[in-house]
């Protein structure tokens, strides 16, 4: 009942925002609608192939007045089966060294959690570890401070610090199911930060931390540590990210890890081959320890969209003969 009402509200809100942004006097205040969407055809090795209207996300952004900025994203996933508010925040951008963001925002931990949209992410699907370890896309409600300091010509040190409601769930439970603690179930808040360095020569480096109590009754914490790095030069890009979650449980601490490495090269402005390796590891020899190797290429008919054709090799780490390979064709657009 509650989910159905939320769905109706989201549909109405999406329509109203889109209408307001394009037709009302607000359009004259810099309010505009952008967004992204992607459609996929997935053919798994051991299952049935399917078309999937994976998502259509409408983003409303507005330079409201002076230094006040607003943004909201409503996502319609799998043909409208899932509807959610990914983020909705107000940002105050007056000060030179700090911007203030309040509301529901994507927690800027690492790189992939923020850069997950299909039209940006060069390989279809999430890398392993960035759904079950770091529960991407992880957005939360709270306060974010962020800023940057010039560090030489075209280079900068960046920083983010946030306090949010945090994850909440059962002892030792799946971290992905602990999101959506939108009205905090306890008084404990989670805090985190990211320190980054962006270099003119093409490096983008970052280290992140996020920690909080996920089960108040047993005083159980979960702490994420992460590192991310990207290098770009003349159409070549290589990037990688590592995340570790230390989750307290009745039986002791559980360490969960995920990491990926990805390389791509823009052969011509319209074509970019890409490969990605990712893996996630859980305590013990878990059947959830999975490894991925994806390869394929993107074709860019314009700067708005891409057609991606990829083959993804998925297998268990401990039992490599257990596979679930996939062919994925993805049409994605950012507008």
């Amino acid at each position, binding site marked *: 009942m509650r989910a159905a009402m939320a769905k109706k509200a989201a549909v109405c809100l999406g329509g109203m925002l889109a209408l307001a942004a394009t037709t009302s006097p607000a359009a004259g205040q810099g309010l*505009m609608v952008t967004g992204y969407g992607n459609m996929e055809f997935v053919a798994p090795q051991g299952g049935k192939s399917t078309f999937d209207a994976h998502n259509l996300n409408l983003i409303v952004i*507005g330079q409201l007045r002076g230094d006040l900025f607003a943004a909201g994203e409503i996502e319609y996933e799998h043909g409208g089966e899932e509807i959610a508010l990914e983020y909705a925040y107000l940002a105050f951008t007056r000060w*030179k060294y700090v911007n203030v963001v309040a509301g529901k925002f994507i927690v800027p931990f690492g790189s992939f959690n923020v850069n997950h949209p299909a039209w940006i992410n060069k390989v279809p699907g999430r890398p392993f570890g960035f759904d079950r370890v770091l529960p991407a896309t992880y957005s939360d409600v709270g306060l974010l401070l962020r*800023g940057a*300091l*010039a*560090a030489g*010509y075209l*280079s900068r040190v960046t920083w983010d610090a946030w306090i949010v409601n945090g994850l909440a769930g059962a002892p030792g439970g799946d971290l992905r199911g602990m999101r959506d603690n939108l009205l905090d179930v306890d008084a404990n808040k989670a805090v985190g930060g990211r320190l980054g360095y962006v270099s003119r020569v093409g490096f983008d480096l970052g280290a992140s*931390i996020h920690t909080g109590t996920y089960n108040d009754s047993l005083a159980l914490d979960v702490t994420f540590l992460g590192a991310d790095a990207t290098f770009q030069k003349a159409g070549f890009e290589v990037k990688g990210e590592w995340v570790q979650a230390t989750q307290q449980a009745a039986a002791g601490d559980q360490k969960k890890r995920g990491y990926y490495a990805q390389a791509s090269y823009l052969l011509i402005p319209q074509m970019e081959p890409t490969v990605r390796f990712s893996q996630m590891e859980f305590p013990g020899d878990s059947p959830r320890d999975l490894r991925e190797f994806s390869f394929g290429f993107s074709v860019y008919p314009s700067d708005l969209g891409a057609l991606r054709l990829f083959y993804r090799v998925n297998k268990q780490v401990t039992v490599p003969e257990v596979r679930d390979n996939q062919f994925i064709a993805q049409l994605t657009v950012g507008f």
Partner: protein
Amino acid sequence: MSLARQHTQQWAGRWAVAALALAVLVAPATAQQKASGAEVWSSNCGRCHRVRAVDAYDARQWETVVTHMALAARLTYDETQAVREFLVGSARARQAGSAANGGQVAASTANGGLFIEAAARCCDPKVGASIFKAQCAACHGQAGKGDGPAATALNPRPPDLRAAGRVAELPDDSLVQVITAGRRGMPGYGKTLSAEQIQEVVAFIRTLKP
């Protein structure tokens, strides 16, 4: 205090020390040079997504998009201002050019009068070279080969300004018009550069050799 909390505090302490050390090391360089908006645009906007053409939005839309993206990319305040001036300014120049004469900036307009006046006391290719480096090299490359850092993701790619039969055969007035109002994805610089500066850029382009 739990083990995880202690671990967290140790990491936070190390990162804070590292950040301070980095800031002390690099801070002296910050005041020396300021990057142009074109350089900030070409150096940053392609890091996460394909570079959106400068004529993709009008001036008002660029105002909003720049704030959104500057927040996401964690640009510094000065970088944000520079890229805003570049993108919003070029959109205004384009819009002004369209309003003036169907996309062409005619020599008979008020701006054209300035160009003629500027041409009479112009132009130093060395001055043009420094303007070119700051405003044009991001796409056209330092030597005008069309191989700047932003060029790989642009479609169409910036032309080789040294090539015979293209720029070489265009009269100065046409080059001034293109630089002022923009053309095929190239931003207009009529709101960013003065008439004299544009003439100096043209003078520099004339010196480029294959």
